């Protein structure tokens, strides 16, 4: 076993420090060391988006980032999306549109959609579908997810 590294970062606005082995991904650190289990492991190889978090404001697959790489970084996970006042509009619209079934992909979709709306507050349906191409859902067929995101942005879905 290699020596553990001491890492300081900010997660959901709170300063955190943790010890991790270099081989531990940011996903493993979030779930196993920081006990933030909202972020899910899907494929663990960068294809499915279930583990999406924001790293310094950029959408990333946390399975493809090492815990030791995030020294000094700002991380937002699904646990940091809602406010004390209540659910984020995306979360509310996912509920209203029933944009989930098994729920494993949902945290990743919400975080990815938040990254989209942060950059493009009024996206077209094409933009939403293109942006979310890196998130896989095997239950919904995507349409409800797309409608929920458009509704959260205040944009009417086509068709």
């Amino acid at each position, binding site marked *: *076993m*290699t*020596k553990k*590294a001491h890492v300081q970062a900010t997660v959901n606005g709170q300063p955190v420090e943790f010890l991790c*082995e*270099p*081989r531990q*991904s940011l996903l493993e650190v979030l779930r196993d060391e920081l006990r933030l289990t909202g972020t899910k492991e899907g494929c*663990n*190889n*960068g*294809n499915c*988006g279930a583990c*999406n978090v924001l*790293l310094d404001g*950029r*959408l*990333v*697959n946390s*399975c*493809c*980032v*090492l815990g*030791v*790489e995030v020294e000094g970084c700002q991380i937002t996970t699904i646990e940091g999306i809602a406010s004390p006042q209540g659910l984020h509009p995306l979360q509310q619209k996912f509920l209203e549109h029933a944009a989930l079934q098994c729920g494993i992909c949902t945290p990743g979709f919400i975080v*990815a959609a938040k*990254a*989209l709306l942060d950059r493009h507050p009024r996206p077209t349906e094409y933009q939403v579908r*293109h*942006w979310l*191409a*890196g*998130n896989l859902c095997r239950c919904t067929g995507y349409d409800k997810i797309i409608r929920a995101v458009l509704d959260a942005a205040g944009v009417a879905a086509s068709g």
Partner: protein
Amino acid sequence: MEPFDYAAPKTLNEAIALLVERGDRARVLAGGTDIIVQVREGRRHADLLVDIKRIPEVNILHYDPREGLRLGAAVPCYRIYEDADIARLYPGLIDAVSLIGGIQIQSRASVGGNLCNASPAADTVPALIVHEARCVVMGPAGQRLVPVEEFCVAPGRTVLGRGELLVELRLPPPRPHFGAHYLRFIPRNEMDIAVVGVGAAVALDERRERCVQARIGLAAVAPTPLLVPEAAAALMDGPLTESHFDRAAALAQAAARPISDLRGDAAFRRHLVGVLTKRALRTALQRARET
């Protein structure tokens, strides 16, 4: 995942010293979207990952009208396509960095990493080939420049020797009336590995009729990405017409040495080379006429 050490040097010399000391057992980490997964899945082995992202030289992204583009080896895709000047001047590169993976991958993955991973299907390599990129390699013996089409030597293998590191890519300033395009065939709309990828670039004369310079690059049809000079040479004779594109496409098909695998058989790949070469040339020509 097998255990490994991690180092994040702040200078090129420190990184090179680590790579010299650990040899093949050390791997460079930039965006990590390939190497982390490969080590996890046992497809590559590493005792040490050398994270180069804290080294200033590999984060350079700078355009100069005389020198061209300096693209640091660890610059992630999004920084390239979000730069409006670079997007205008290097359209083939922009095509490639915009279609690699999803947004999540583009946040981390670098062009330098795509090149060093040396996949025959790497999307950025045909684009780098048509933009005439040269690779700045640093090692214990100093610096050398390698034309990008010579950088990959076999699937997963590059010209880098012990202790050597890709520092940056240098793309010359675009010629007058220049256009380029990269496109690929995949069975899905997004998020897939190229069955075939084709890059094309053309530079036109002042009347924007004759081609004065061209490059064609292919991916996923040989053990390494290919530059096909004979296909580009077929464009040089008289004002450009569709029949030039037919000849160039046929020569590109002849240069391809595809294998059959789960993504497509050899005959289908050779067919795609012809179709995509013509499409890449048409778009490159259209872009050249608009500059």
